[in-house]
C-alpha cells in the first residue's frame, strides 16, 4: 500500500493559524512586549534557551510569545531557527572556574572558601501565593531604588566574584583524581552522527540541551531506587562566563563577544579506591545555560549514572540520551496528531478481512 496525497486542508490551516492569534489576543488589553517576557520570565527564558541549545534571550522571548508560553514549542522554534544560521566561530575554551558568581551553595560542606551565597533564589521561602503580584504596576522603580545600595556598601563589598571551586579543593587534598586533558576535539551532536556507546563530550552536550522535566524525572528515578546515584551537592554555582573567540583578523589575539549566565553543578556521589589504594570521591557534572538549577543537578546525576554499569534505566546510555531531548520527544509524540489515514485504513482492512474469514469458518461449521 502506497501513500496517498490528499488536498483540501489549505484554507482550513490558514484559518486555524489565524484562530491561534485570535485566542492569543482576544482577552488581552494589549499585546505582550517581548522585552517584558525577556526580563520578567527569566527562568522560563533560561529553560527555553537551554533546551533549544541556543543562547539568545531576545529570540527566546519571541519564541515564547509565539508559542503562547509552551516551552517545548518555543525550544523547537529556536532549534529550527538556529539551523538557518551559519556557524562561523567556536569560542576559546571557557574555564568555569572564572565564573563571576551570583549564587553559590554547597550541601556537602558548610564552610567553603569564600562562603555560601544564596543569591537570587526562592529555595527558602514558603510556597504561598503572593497576591501582591497583582499590584506591582508602576512600583518597579521605587522597589529597585529601595533595594539599591549606597556607594560605601558597594566599595566595602570589593570582590571579583570569583571563588575557588570546591572540586579544586578536593583535588588539592587528594580526595579526587587529577585528570589531564587528552586534547581531543569534542564530539558535536549538531554535526556528527551519534553512535552508541558514545563519548563523554557527546553525553554532556546532549544532557546540556536536554528537557528539564524529562531529566528531572529520570534523575528522580535513580534516587528513588531505580538506579545507583543519590548524591549531595558538592557545589552549585550560578554566574556569568565571558565568551571569547579568536580574533578573525589575527588568530593569536582574542576578542570578547559577551557573557552568558550559566548554572554549574558538581555532585558528590560515592567514593572508590584508585590504583594506588587511595580513596577518592566520584563526582557528577552538570552545566546549563541560564539559571536552571534542577536541570543542572539532574544532569549531574544522569551523567554520573551513565558512568556506572548496571541494568537500571538511567544506566542505559541510549535510553537516557535519546529520550531527554525536548524537540525529539515532543515532535514524535505530537506527530500522532497529523493525518494517519493510510495507517489506520490498513488496520481496518486487516480487521475486516479477519472478520470475513471468521464468518466463512462459522458458516462452514
Amino acid at each position, binding site marked *: 500500500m502506497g501513500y496517498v496525497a490528499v488536498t483540501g486542508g489549505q484554507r482550513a490551516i490558514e484559518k486555524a493559524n489565524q484562530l491561534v492569534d485570535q485566542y492569543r489576543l482576544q482577552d488581552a488589553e494589549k499585546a505582550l512586549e517581548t522585552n517584558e517576557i525577556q526580563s520578567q520570565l527569566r527562568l522560563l527564558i533560561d529553560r527555553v534557551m537551554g533546551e533549544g*541549545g*541556543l*543562547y*539568545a534571550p*531576545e529570540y527566546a522571548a519571541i519564541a515564547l510569545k509565539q508559542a503562547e508560553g509552551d516551552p517545548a514549542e518555543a525550544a523547537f522554534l529556536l532549534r529550527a531557527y*538556529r539551523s538557518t*544560521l551559519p*556557524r*562561523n*566561530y*567556536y*569560542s*576559546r575554551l*571557557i574555564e*568555569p572556574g572564572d565564573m*563571576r558568581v*551570583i549564587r553559590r551553595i554547597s550541601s556537602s560542606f*558548610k564552610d567553603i572558601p569564600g*562562603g*555560601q*551565597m*544564596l*543569591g537570587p533564589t526562592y529555595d527558602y521561602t514558603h510556597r504561598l501565593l503572593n497576591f501582591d503580584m497583582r499590584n506591582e504596576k508602576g512600583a518597579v522603580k521605587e522597589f529597585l531604588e529601595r533595594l539599591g*545600595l549606597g556607594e560605601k556598601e*558597594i*566599595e566595602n*563589598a*570589593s*570582590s571579583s*566574584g570569583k571563588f575557588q571551586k570546591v*572540586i579544586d579543593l578536593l583535588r588539592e587534598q587528594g580526595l579526587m583524581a587529577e*585528570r*589531564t*586533558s587528552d586534547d*581531543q576535539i*569534542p564530539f*558535536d551532536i*549538531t554535526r556528527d552522527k551519534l553512535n552508541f556507546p558514545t563519548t*563523554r*563530550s557527546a553525553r*554532556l*552536550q546532549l544532557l*546540556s540541551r536536554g528537557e528539564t522535566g524529562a531529566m528531572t524525572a529520570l534523575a528522580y528515578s535513580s534516587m528513588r531506587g531505580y538506579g545507583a546515584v543519590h548524591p549531595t551537592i558538592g557545589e552549585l554555582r550560578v554566574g556569568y*562566563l*565571558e*565568551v*571569547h*573567540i579568536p*580574533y*578573525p*583578523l*589575527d588568530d593569536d*589575539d582574542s*576578542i*570578547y*563577544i*559577551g557573557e*552568558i549566565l550559566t548554572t554549574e553543578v558538581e555532585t558528590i556521589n560515592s567514593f572508590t579506591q584508585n590504583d594506588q589504594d587511595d580513596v577518592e570521591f566520584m563526582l557528577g*557534572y552538570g*552545566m546549563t545555560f541560564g539559571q536552571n538549577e534542577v536541570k543542572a543537578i539532574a544532569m549531574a546525576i544522569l551523567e554520573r549514572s551513565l558512568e556506572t554499569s548496571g541494568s537500571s534505566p538511567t544506566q542505559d546510555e541510549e535510553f537516557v540520551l535519546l529520550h531527554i531531548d525536548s524537540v525529539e520527544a515532543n515532535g514524535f509524540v505530537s506527530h500522532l496528531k497529523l493525518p494517519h489515514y493510510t495507517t489506520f485504513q490498513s488496520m481496518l482492512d486487516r480487521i475486516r478481512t479477519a472478520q470475513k474469514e471468521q464468518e466463512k469458518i462459522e458458516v462452514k461449521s
Partner: protein
Amino acid sequence: MKKSRLTKILIEGDSQLIKDLASQVENNYLIQTEKPPQTGLTMVKVKDSISNNPFYMGEVLVTECTVSINGTFGMSVIMGEKAETAYQIAIIDAAMNSNLPMTKDWFHLLLQEEKNIDKRQQKELAMVNQTKVHFNTMEDYNDKS
C-alpha cells in the same frame, strides 16, 4: 590595549560611547562596508571540571560585521542581534588597526568606561554579598536533662 580588553569595554560599556567614537571616524574617513552586519552562531566550548576535557555546551547568537578604512580592515562579533552596535564596533576596530590619530584621544575614555563597567559589576556583587550565609553552630541540645 589588547583586543579582548578593548572589545569588552566596547560591548559592555555605554552605547553612547561607541556611537560617539564611531561617528568621529565616519565624519572624517570613508568607511567601506566589507561584510554588512549579519547574524550567525558561535559554538561555546566549555571545560568539563571533572574530566578537564572540553565539550560543546550550545551555541550563542552573534552579529558580526567587517568594514575597512583605506584598505585596513576592522571587524566585530557581538552576542545578540545588534546590527548597529556591530557596525560601530567594526569601525572603531578598523580605526584602531589603522592607528588613526584620533584613536590616541580615546584611551582615557576607554579606561573611564572600563571603570564604569567594573563599578556596575561591583554593585551586583555587593547585592549578592548581602545573601552570604554566616553559619553559627547551635548549642548541643541534651534531651535527657
